[in-house]
């Protein structure tokens, strides 16, 4: 490409050289604009629409762009399909650097234009691909239809055709829009305008009020009539295996400390019996009872809880609730164990957001599948798992500060929802 940019310098002094330069421009642009090879890259939903656009129904091959290259060195076009997370950002910048020029980028979908659905209250998503690499064409939509992507491709084609040897392609710079809050900006500008307008209009309004003291607007908004539907009672889904009362009774027999969460004063057995059939029994267990109970329900033939659905936690002001969801494949009943862990308030307050506040025994030796789930809970809540074989952060970088799913979590890049 370098040689072509020198063409005007060499050819312009020669009589008629201008026409040669124009001819070169024409040929080069024609080739570039009509042979755009995209990079195989996609992170989420938009990637599927990008794939759809190369499939039989829409067929991006008509434009000569079906040559999706897996190696960035052979690609021309970077279709940024899908959300860009902070963790993915360096990879994207590296990919962009590896594409030889002239190269172009299409931001496909709302996520890559502005952050899209993940714009507010989010610590993980980069708000717009523009922050990382220069973007040529924006295709809004969530995800955009394949036709919309083609429209983007055609828009890009027009942009390429405008290049000349004298005004060659050059790599633009990324633009920092990461802190842009379009909603608040618009509201702020409007408030200022409104203030000015109020001052201007004050007299006119006062005059109007004098002239029409009992003014009634002729405008009556018509409410959209919504179709009326009958109320339908809910029928609980079928239940298999032991009933909640049976499970609770049997557990209580062995571990007298287990209870269920309730506000009512009724005896606890009645509370359990009142739980709808298709709602799993959730028992509160003491942290020290947790491992024995899990061992018991896994090994006892009556329970036979061989299947771990999930491990998750909930953050409250002074304690965590860690919920372990178990199921018996053989019998079909479920049991949720809710471990209430008091937060360790002996840690000084300023250190609390970055330190592990509670600790519980790991069950990953009983359920190998719990290993990743416990890592997730550790990563999101900062709960320590004793005896976990590989306690590392799972979704976030290892130098990420804080535990995002705690209620008091803050992140410098996080913008609060305005409404």
């Amino acid at each position, binding site marked *: 490409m370098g040689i072509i940019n020198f063409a005007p310098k060499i050819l312009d002094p020669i009589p008629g050289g201008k026409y040669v330069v124009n001819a070169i421009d024409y040929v*080069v642009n*024609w080739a570039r604009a*009509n042979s755009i090879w995209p990079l195989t890259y996609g992170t989420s939903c938009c990637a599927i629409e990008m794939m759809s656009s190369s499939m*039989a129904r829409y067929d991006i091959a*008509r434009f000569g762009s079906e040559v999706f290259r897996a190696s960035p060195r052979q690609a021309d076009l970077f279709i940024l399909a899908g959300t860009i997370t902070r963790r993915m950002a360096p990879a994207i910048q590296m990919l962009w650097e590896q594409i*030889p*020029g002239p190269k172009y980028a299409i931001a496909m979908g709302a996520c890559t234009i502005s952050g899209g659905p993940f714009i507010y209250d989010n610590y993980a998503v980069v708000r717009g691909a523009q922050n990382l690499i220069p973007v040529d064409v924006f295709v809004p939509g969530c995800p955009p239809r394949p036709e919309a992507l083609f429209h983007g491709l055609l828009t890009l084609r027009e942009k390429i055709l405008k290049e000349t040897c004298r005004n060659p392609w050059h790599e633009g710079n990324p633009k920092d829009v990461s802190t842009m809050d379009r909603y608040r900006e618009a509201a702020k500008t409007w408030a200022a305008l409104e203030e000015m307008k109020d001052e201007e209009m004050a007299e006119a309004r006062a005059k109007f009020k004098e002239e029409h003291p009992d003014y009634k607007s002729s405008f009556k908004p018509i409410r959209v009539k919504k179709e009326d539907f009958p109320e339908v009672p809910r029928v609980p889904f079928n239940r298999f295996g032991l009933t909640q009362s049976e499970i609770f009774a049997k557990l209580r027999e062995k571990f007298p400390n287990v209870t269920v969460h309730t506000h009512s004063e009724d005896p606890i057995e009645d509370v359990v019996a009142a739980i709808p059939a298709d709602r799993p029994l959730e028992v509160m267990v003491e942290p020290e009872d947790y491992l024995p109970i899990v061992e018991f329900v896994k090994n006892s033939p009556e329970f036979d809880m061989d299947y771990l659905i999930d491990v998750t936690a909930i953050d409250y002001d002074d304690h965590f609730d860690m919920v372990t969801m178990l199921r018996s494949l053989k019998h079909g009943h479920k049991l949720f164990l809710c471990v209430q862990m008091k937060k360790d308030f002996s840690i000084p307050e300023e250190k609390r957001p970055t330190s592990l506040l509670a600790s519980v025994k790991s069950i990953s030796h009983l359920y190998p599948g719990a290993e990743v789930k416990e890592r997730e809970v550790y990563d999101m809540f900062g709960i320590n798992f004793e005896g976990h074989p590989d306690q590392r952060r799972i979704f976030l970088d290892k130098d990420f500060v804080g535990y995002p799913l705690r209620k008091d979590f803050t992140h410098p890049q996080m913008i609060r929802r305005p409404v």
Partner: protein
Amino acid sequence: MFVPSVTNPIGDFVRDMVPRLAEFLPASLQSDTLNSIVAFLINAVICVIAVCVVNIGSAPILIYMERKVCAHIQCRLGPMRLGWHGTIQTIADVLKMLFKEVYAPSGADKLMFYLAPLIVLIAPFIVCALIPFGRNLVVADVSMGIPLIIAVNGFGVLGILLGGWSSNNKYSLLGALRSGAQMISYEISFAMILLFVVMISGSTNLMSITLGQEGTIADWWIFKIPVLGIIAFILFFISSTAEMNRAPFDIAEAEQELTGGYHTEYNGTPFAMFYLAEYIALVTNSALATTCFLGGFLPPCIGVSFVDNYLNMVPGVVWFFAKVFFMIWCYMMVRWTFVRPRVDQLMDFEWKFLLPVNLVLLVAGAAYIVVCG
């Protein structure tokens, strides 16, 4: 001792014409030495141009054809917008690649990195020079044609190995080593099938192999020996597909596994060379298959003189390219139908299936010749 001879029909023609044209020049310029030098140069230029035109000219056509064929298998249209039904799409692609930025990755062995695509291109060019496209239409009519082809075909693997090794990328290295292992293995059965052809035709010269098939379709090597010919043809098809690194034997590139194999780190013109070499190899291999099995430039006569007369009126080169394109179409159908075997299965297939069958074939062919003729 067997002395290989090289004849060149085009050269003969030029050597014949140059002294006659030289007569028009002033007497002072006339000399035999000069004549022969001029004749050599003209000859060389014609030959190089011929080979380049056939090779480089056919590559965009083939790429276009491949895109269209795969599109139609996949129920879509393929390139449509550039030229009539996208005919000049590939020209735009090649031009664009020429104008792309070229750079080598850091840590790459620059000399080898840029040398590799050139080496890959050499082999198909030499093979192309040996193939008779028509009566008297051959660049170099070498008496040891087949051995030379076998020798030269191994050149491609060198380029791929070099490219993969010098890229300083693990994927490239894996791809290069895979292709090295694969191509060297399949080279053996490739050579043995050609040996089978040499055995039944009694010649190593490609022209005489072709002319040995003169007659009707039944005289082509594929049909001349019942069953064995067809088996040999299928084996040739398989081993040449593997030789060319084409799907389903494209484990060296294996986009889904190695993102690009040996050419992961290549861009711009060097990549275009790899890309073209793949298709030029397709031409030469199809041409070889045509020459060795499908009667080369001979028309598909059926023994009815009324029809055959018309068939004979068509120039041989047309027949030749018609057959070559049929072969290429077959390669493409196979490519877009089958999935890729694993590297160890590929080796197993070669050493445990293809090679034994080849050996049996050779013995059976020899037995056939001894018994029947």
